[in-house]
């Protein structure tokens, strides 16, 4: 169904259930849907599993969600940053579970979820602690590890422009995980800088077609 244009961020994140897996776009702050994460804090869903490249920066956005104790588990590639003190504290206190996934496997596992792929053999991480215990196979002389899809109940992403159907374009490296996460979740919510009339986006340059987008809010 074509996307709904929401008036508020609260409307855009309404209905997220306790225990959900939430994919959160962004690489550091670029592409991070801060307003949606703030609205999710207001909304109150708890016991969440968050899938994102990082585990929060500073005290806002994802870090604030973590600080409120709403997140049970983080699946990410790079939790440790100079300004990840909220996550660091929770982790050292044993208050949050962490699954570290190599960044490319993280992206590809979500891509697999969106593309109907049941599992795939990746060469990344073979022979390292991050793939310990996983099934491996030698194919054509190279060793691969079997990786399974990561699917979200919800994806919160940041984009640049949306038309009224929900077609999205991004801006520079803020594109990052948004297009992949949009394919991999049951409910996809996009925070955008601008909403334009349908027909105003170049069909050759649409990055996320409207089929993947459920709700859009300008923020």
């Amino acid at each position, binding site marked *: *169904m*074509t996307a709904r244009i929401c008036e508020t961020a609260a409307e855009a994140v309404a209905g997220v259930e306790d225990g959900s897996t939430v994919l959160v776009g962004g690489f550091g702050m670029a592409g991070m849907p801060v307003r949606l994460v703030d609205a999710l804090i207001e909304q109150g869903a708890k016991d969440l599993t968050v899938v994102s490249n990082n585990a929060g920066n500073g005290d806002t956005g994802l870090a604030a969600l973590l600080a409120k104790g709403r997140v049970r588990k983080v699946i990410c590639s790079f939790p440790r940053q100079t300004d990840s003190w909220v996550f660091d504290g929770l982790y050292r206190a044993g208050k949050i579970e962490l699954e570290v996934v190599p960044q490319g496997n993280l992206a590809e596992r979500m*891509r697999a*979820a*969106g*593309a*109907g*792929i049941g599992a795939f053999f990746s060469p990344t991480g073979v022979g390292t602690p991050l793939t310990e215990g996983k099934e491996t196979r030698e194919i054509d002389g190279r060793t691969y590890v079997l990786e399974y899809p990561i699917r979200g109940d919800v994806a919160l992403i940041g984009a640049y422009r949306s*038309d*009224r*159907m929900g*077609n999205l374009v991004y801006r520079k490296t803020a594109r990052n995980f948004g297009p992949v996460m949009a*394919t991999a979740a049951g409910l996809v919510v996009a925070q955008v800088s601008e909403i334009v009339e*349908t*027909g105003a*986006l170049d*069909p*050759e340059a*649409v990055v996320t*077609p*409207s*089929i*993947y987008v459920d709700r859009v809010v300008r923020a």
Partner: protein
Amino acid sequence: MSLDKNQIAARIARDIPRGAYVNLGIGQPTLVADHLPADSGVVLHTENGMLNMGPAATGDDIDPDLINAGKIPVTELPGSAYFHHADSFAMMRGGHLDVCVLGAFQVSARGDLANWHTGAPDAIPAVGGAMDLAIGARRIFVMMTLFAKDGTPKLVPECTYPLTGVGCVNRIYTDLATFLINPDAVVVRETFGISFAELAERLDVPITAAMTAASPGSR
């Protein structure tokens, strides 16, 4: 009165939800587009890489770079988007299309579909995107005549032609009746110019009347 192909197409069009993302298979299913209300908001997908495909192109609008999966020149509507083949089939395989309408040689009582090959030993096999469509969309509607030209039923206990997909068909729209393929039964939702008793008599598949069998669990 039994339905002609345009009437079957109209019947299917009525069952497509507003704003749905739909793929119409090559051949008769493309007729469904002509019967969608102008304000249906239905977005048509063509597997060769486009969403929000418009009607067939005529005259000066014909562009050899803008064709549908049947290689017929088409047009674009506002809000369309182009993407490459791997992305298009990821969209299909990943379960993002709401409905796909396909033709069929045979459908079995448990929803197996045979629509790509008659099994004739001298036929050159050619499958195109049929198998991807069959297993990809959330709901598969089949559009066909109920009986072949030689009078044999095309709704069968087991397909004798090579399969396209296993257990994938949800509904069959025919000239004589509409069937729901439910997990436990083939339910006749409506008949056209034939009685339920006669239908039951002419088919080798046990059928149930809708009044007793339709349920929220219907697929």
